[in-house]
Each structure stands twice: as structure tokens, then as C-alpha cells.
């Protein structure tokens, strides 16, 4: 539903004839499709632009694999972010958690435990940071913006302290191998598979489980959810844990991708993840979220970056274009909300 809560119209539906019964349901689904279709349209236009400006390089299999691989890391973060935003919250600390998890998982000590040690550490650090966020917000009654801003600062600081500003090279073969072409499955990089699995699970959880339903209820009207008997605080705790978990997974993917851990990893991921979720159609005020839209948002941003890089345009131009797209997407959504 794109429409905000409208003023009361007492008489309108009371006398609605039963013939209209399916009509509103049809518009409901149709409207959801319109948003997805328009995002797909934007993606198609971008692919067209890429194909025209750099026909050989852009449509090359290797390039497409690269685009999807790059989308995977931020994509996993965005899935977690979508849940948090749907619940009416925000997580500004995702980039910093990715950085901290990636450096903690790549210290000399951790690497001694091999593949499992790196994976385990990355996930645990992510979940741990999410736990702190969740406890502060759900039980410490802190505003999500402030709590996660504090986490952003502390996690980045801790990451710097661990690395002392040095890049930590990964020497564990099993991890590095996953980034190699040999390990692609039917031409699909393992990282992209992880992203796909996270997306599918995220979609199912949001749309088909009580957890997802509670998330939407808390975001749509926390007071009503509380009075309906939902444990709003526990739900909030779980949501930040989930976001932390996604950051941990993303950190592991980043380690595979870069073969290293750096305290500058995940820079501005929070902005990219929020932007992707918002242009995908998730309401920043909460109460409505779409994993499909978020993933399309991520793909759109990654494709733009790729096209700009292929055409040797500087990153400053990219940033400006991203900003313009965010504004345009929100304006278009507002427009459809008003006309329907």
C-alpha cells in the first residue's frame, strides 16, 4: 500500500456493494507490482545504457559476475536493514560492524583457527554488536538513531585499535579459494549464492512468519502492537540482533572478496543500505517493508557504480547521480501514493 493513513471517511465503504469485493484486493496487488515493475524498469534502462556505452565490457560474463559479487556484500546488509526500518527503527552502525567483524576475524590469532574460526568470529562479532544495539534500544529505551550512532563510533574505533591502521592479509587457503573462479558454481560466485540464500530467507521470514508479521505491526503502530499483546521490546531486540547477524555474514563475504580485513571496510554502508531499502519501497517511518524492493535497490546502485567505472567517470559524479536517484525515487513514490 502506498497510501498513508487517510482521514476517516465514515460512509464510504459501509454501503460498498459486494461486487467490489475483489476489486480492492486486485488494486492492492497491482500496486505492489507497479513498484516492483518500475524498479525493474529502471534496472533495465541502466543495463541498456551500460550495453550501449560499453557493449563489450559491460555485458561480459565476468563483469556481470563482478557486479553481482559487489552487490552481495551490501545486499546482505540491506536485507537486515530492511527488517529494522520496517519496524520503525534505523541501524546506523552496519558499516562499522562490518569493519569490526572483518578485522576481528582476520587477526593473526583468529586465522590460526582457519576457515571456521574466521567465519565464526565474523558472525559472533556481528551478532554481539547487534545485541548491544538491541539491548540499548529495547530495554534501555534509547532512540535507535543515537544508540546505533554510538555503536558506529565505538566499533570503528575498536576496529582501528585492533589493526592499528594496517591491512590484515588473509592466509587461510579455504577462505581465499571461495573468491577464485574455480569455486564458481555453474558460473555463479559463492558470494552471490550466499546473497541469494539470505534474500530468500529474508523474504520468507518477513512475509510468511509470525516474526515478520510482528515486525510490520511494531513498525506500523507500536502502541497498538503492545496493546494487542505483542512483546514489542523483545521484537526490537531480535531485529537489531538480525541486523548484526547480517553484518557478520557481510563481513565474511568481504573478507573472501578482498582477501583481507581493514578497519576502513564497510565505509558508508549505512547510507547505501538505507538508500537501497527506501528506493525499494520500504517506509522509513515503518510499517511496510519489501525485501524484493531492497534487493532491486541494491542492484540498481551497484549497476550505476559499475557503468560509471567502465566509462571512467569519477566517484564524485557517481555520488551525485546516486543522490539524484534517491530523490527521484521518493518523489515518484509520493506521486503514486497521491494519485491512487
Amino acid at each position, binding site marked *: *500500500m502506498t497510501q498513508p493513513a487517510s482521514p*476517516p471517511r465514515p460512509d464510504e465503504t459501509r454501503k460498498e456493494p459486494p461486487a467490489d469485493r475483489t476489486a*480492492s484486493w486486485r488494486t492492492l496487488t497491482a500496486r505492489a507490482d507497479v513498484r516492483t515493475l518500475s524498479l525493474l524498469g529502471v534496472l533495465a534502462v541502466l543495463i541498456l545504457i551500460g550495453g550501449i556505452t560499453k557493449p563489450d565490457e559491460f555485458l561480459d560474463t565476468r563483469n556481470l559476475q563482478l557486479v553481482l559479487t559487489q552487490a552481495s556484500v551490501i545486499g546482505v546488509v540491506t536485507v537486515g536493514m530492511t527488517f529494522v526500518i520496517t519496524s520503525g527503527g534505523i541501524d546506523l552502525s552496519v558499516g562499522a560492524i562490518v569493519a569490526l567483524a572483518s578485522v576481528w576475524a582476520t587477526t593473526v590469532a583468529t586465522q590460526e583457527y582457519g576457515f571456521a574460526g574466521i567465519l565464526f568470529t565474523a558472525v559472533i562479532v556481528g551478532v554481539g554488536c547487534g545485541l548491544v544495539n538491541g539491548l540499548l534500544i529495547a530495554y534501555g529505551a534509547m532512540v535507535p538513531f543515537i544508540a546505533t550512532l554510538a555503536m558506529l563510533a565505538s566499533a570503528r574505533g575498536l576496529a582501528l585499535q585492533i589493526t592499528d591502521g594496517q591491512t590484515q592479509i588473509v592466509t587461510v587457503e579455504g577462505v581465499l579459494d571461495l573468491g577464485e573462479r574455480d569455486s564458481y558454481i555453474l558460473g555463479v560466485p559463492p558470494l552471490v549464492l550466499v546473497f541469494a540464500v539470505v534474500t530468500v530467507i529474508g523474504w520468507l521470514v518477513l512475509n510468511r512468519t*509470525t516474526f515478520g508479521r510482528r515486525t510490520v505491526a511494531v513498525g506500523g503502530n507500536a*502502541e497498538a502492537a503492545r496493546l*494487542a499483546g505483542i512483546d514489542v521490546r523483545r521484537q526490537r531486540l531480535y531485529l537489531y540482533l538480525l541486523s548484526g547477524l547480517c553484518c557478520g555474514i557481510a563481513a565474511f563475504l568481504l573478507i573472501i572478496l578482498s582477501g583481507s580485513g581493514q578497519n576502513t571496510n564497510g565505509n558508508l554502508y549505512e547510507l547505501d543500505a538505507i538508500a537501497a531499502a527506501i528506493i525499494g519501497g520500504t517506509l522509513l517511518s515503518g510499517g511496510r517493508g519489501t525485501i524484493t524492493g531492497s534487493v532491486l535497490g541494491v542492484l540498481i546502485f551497484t549497476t550505476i557504480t559499475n557503468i560509471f567505472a567502465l566509462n571512467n567517470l569519477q566517484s564524485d559524479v557517481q555520488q551525485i547521480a546516486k543522490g539524484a536517484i534517491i530523490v527521484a525515487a521518493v518523489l515518484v513514490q509520493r506521486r503514486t501514493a497521491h494519485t491512487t
Partner: protein
Amino acid sequence: MAPEPPLLTMSGITKSFPGVRALDGVDLDVLAGEVHCLLGQNGAGKSTLIKVLAGAHQPDDGTIGWRGETVTLRSPIAAMRLGIATIYQELDLVEGLSVAENVHLGHEPTAAGFVVRGKAARASTAALLKRLGHPEIDPARLVGELSAAQQQIVSMARALSHDVRLIVMDEPSAALDPDEVDNLFRIVGDLTADGVAVVYISHRLEEIRRIGDRVTVLKDGRAVAGGLPAKTTPTRDVVALMTGRNVEYVFPDRPVGPPSGEPVLKVQGLARDGEFAPLDLELRPGEIVGLAGLVGSGRSEVLETIYGARKPTAGQVLVDGQPLKSGSVRAAVRAGLGLAPEERKAQALLMLESVTRNVSVSSMSRFSRGGWLDRRAESGAARAATRELSLRPDNPDVPVRTLSGGNQQKAVLARWLLRGCRVLLLDEPTRGVDVGARAELYAVIRRLADEGLAVLLVSSEVPEVLGLADRVLVLREGRVVHTAPARELDEHRVLDLVMEGTS
């Protein structure tokens, strides 16, 4: 010599909102230097009338005369320029600004047109506060640090900082202690002695007797009596004017004989400091108990505390003899309580969601296997529950926000029906429900009770409580002042009780 013309003449003021005619040709005239009281039940149109007078609402029809000239009050600023100031019930002060800044908000004394002369503002504020008998309030203090009574003084100082000829006070005594009320009356006396007119709104008849000169009674958007002498009109007459109704409600028949069985809900000495005094209550299956009282008498607070949404400072709630964990909504819901709150949109409904999801939200675990939702079972159960209440349209897939007020309320009831709740707490169940749909809602509530639900009903509409409930508790200022079977009470008696507390 002709008598002095009225300061303000409002005639034929009409104002409609979608679905309601809030004011229907109201006349009001106010003389300079008098205290003119406005009386009426909740929803009679008092708030709308003073908002028209303050320039916050534009009337659809009617004329406003000010000192002999016809005027249009296009905006609050326009009203203020004429010398009409309004002190609302919910104080409209900025807590983060100082007293002086609040008093001069929008008309700060300035140098060179934009530099605020703080010292001058503080000096003039201090003078105003002195005139109001509160020289101890420091003009430099933040308004947020002041007590409710002091904030009211600041509000009044703000009104007086304009060249004011008419002050509207909306239930100014509601938040005040008795000695603060005395000070308020002294201020009102000073103002009228200076020739300022005061339009005074209050539910308390004894206040109106003390300071009022004339009374205008509003009912269902009409002025049923204008300019009655405030001190000599008998209470009976005033109450009769307020209650005489055009709309006849149709209430379902009560079951024969008193409800039997053990009480399902027992409330023992439940209290919240500053909201309501210790309260005892028993509710049997099949029984509807009504809580009557004015806005601010603690009705909603009682319900929300029983439900665990507010933590009691004393006492306990028992369901089937088992005490509930205090201050826990989840415990209450698990024990079989359900609340249909006063503010449906803000407290009960997920406005972006379908009827189904709004109905199933409290029973989700029933449709889940390991967290996985069986959406077919969910939608089937929601459909059955909404059908049972004849919710229209008969399609639980539509968004809940497209429903009329009465059907939205049915969606909330269906939620608790589906949950299998045994005690239903209803807070103003017919607020925002149009008159035609009310009878149907009454019938639904009575049927649920007949099927064994215990119902606790809060309403500010006395006929509703009397018509629907079996037993009535009258609340006044957080205390139960009277308990009786509904058939032994009538509307006059209850209004006497809620307003004067003489039992």
C-alpha cells in the same frame, strides 16, 4: 439611551466536518466585562465553537460581530489582533523556551526589526506575572520546568500580552488545586473589572455559580439556551437543557434476572497516584458494567491499568481468582482480557494493513507452526470472526483504513473474539461511529455478553452507559462516587453525580 451593544455577537454559526455537523446555527453574545459560561456535554460543540472564535476553524455559515462590526476571523493571528485570546485545555506552550519567550512568541519586542530585546521581554513578562499574582515565576526559566498550574499562568500572561478584550478559557480549572482555583477566580475578577470579557468553559457547575454572570448551554451543536442567569438558574433546569435529546438510541433488551456464576474479573484496591483512587470491582460472565464519568475523571486510566498498560501504584487484578502480573499487557491478554481502546487509530489499528491482519494480530501463535504462518487458516478464522459481527464489507482482505468507524470498531472486537477473550474492556466504543451504526454495535456488545463475555464499558455518553450496562459505577475526579444497577438510575441523576459529586 440604548443599552451598550454586546462586545461579541456570533449568530447562526454552522460548521460541518466529514460525517458530523458539529455546530448547527449557534448564537452567542458576550458583553464587555462579563463572565459568560459555556456548558454542554462532550461532543456538544463547545470546542468547535471556541475554535471558530479563535480563528482556528472557519465557519461554513453565520456571522461574527465584534464591537458592532461584522468581522471575519481568517486565522488565529487575525483573532488575536482584534483582541480575542484563547487559553486551550491542552496548553500550547513551547517547553524548550523560557517563560518570557513563550509569552512574546510571535510578537517579540525587537530592535531593528529582528534583534530580540530579551531584557525588555523579560521585564514586561515580569509585570504581567505580577498582575496575575505570580511574581515568583522567573521569566528566564524554561516553561518545561514549571508545574501545570504555573504553565497555565504563563498561558494567561501570553493572552494578556496582547491588547486583549475577550479571553476564552477552556476548562482552566481542570489541572488546578483548590487554592490555585481561588487565584484563577481572583484573576478572572480583576480582568472583568477592567472591562475584559471572559468566555469560561467548565464541567463544574459550582464554579459557574461562583464566577459566572450568564450561561449558554450547547447540545448536539445547537445553543439550546442563551444568556441564562448563571447564579439563579436551578441545577435541574441546566441539566435538563444539557440532556434533552433529539436522537433516540435503541438499546438491546437486557437478559432477565441477574448474571450468575463466579466473577471472572476481580479488581481489588487498584489505584494509580494522581489518576484514580483505590477501586474495587467484580465482573461476572454475561454482565456489562458501565463506568460513567466526564473526560478527566480517570475512566480510561482505570481500564488501561486493569489491562496492564499502566502500572498500578496499589492493588491487584484477579482473573478466575489468579492475580495478574501487574503492569503487563501480555499477562492480561494471556489471561483472557481484551481492550478496545479509546483512540482506535492510534492505539488499536494497523492502518496500513488488511482487516485480516488486524484481526489476527493477537492470535498469531494459533496459526503458526514453528513461527511459520498458515495464512489460509488465518484468513479463514478472520473471515469467520468478522462475519459473526457482520462487519462490512464482507471481505477481510480490504485495508482496515477504508472501513467506516463502526466497522473499524468491529474489527477490533473481532480481534478479541478470535483470541477467545473472556473479559472485554471497551473504552468509548462508539466514538467516531455515526448514529445509525451505533445501535448495531450495541446489539453486538450485548450479544457477546449473552454468549458469556464479561464487559466493562467506559463512555462519556451517559445514555449509552445507562442503556447498555447492567450495573453502573459513577466516577468523579478519580473516585467512584456511586454504584447502582442501571435501571435504578436516570440521566439527570448520573449527570448530577458526575458534576457535583453529591450522592
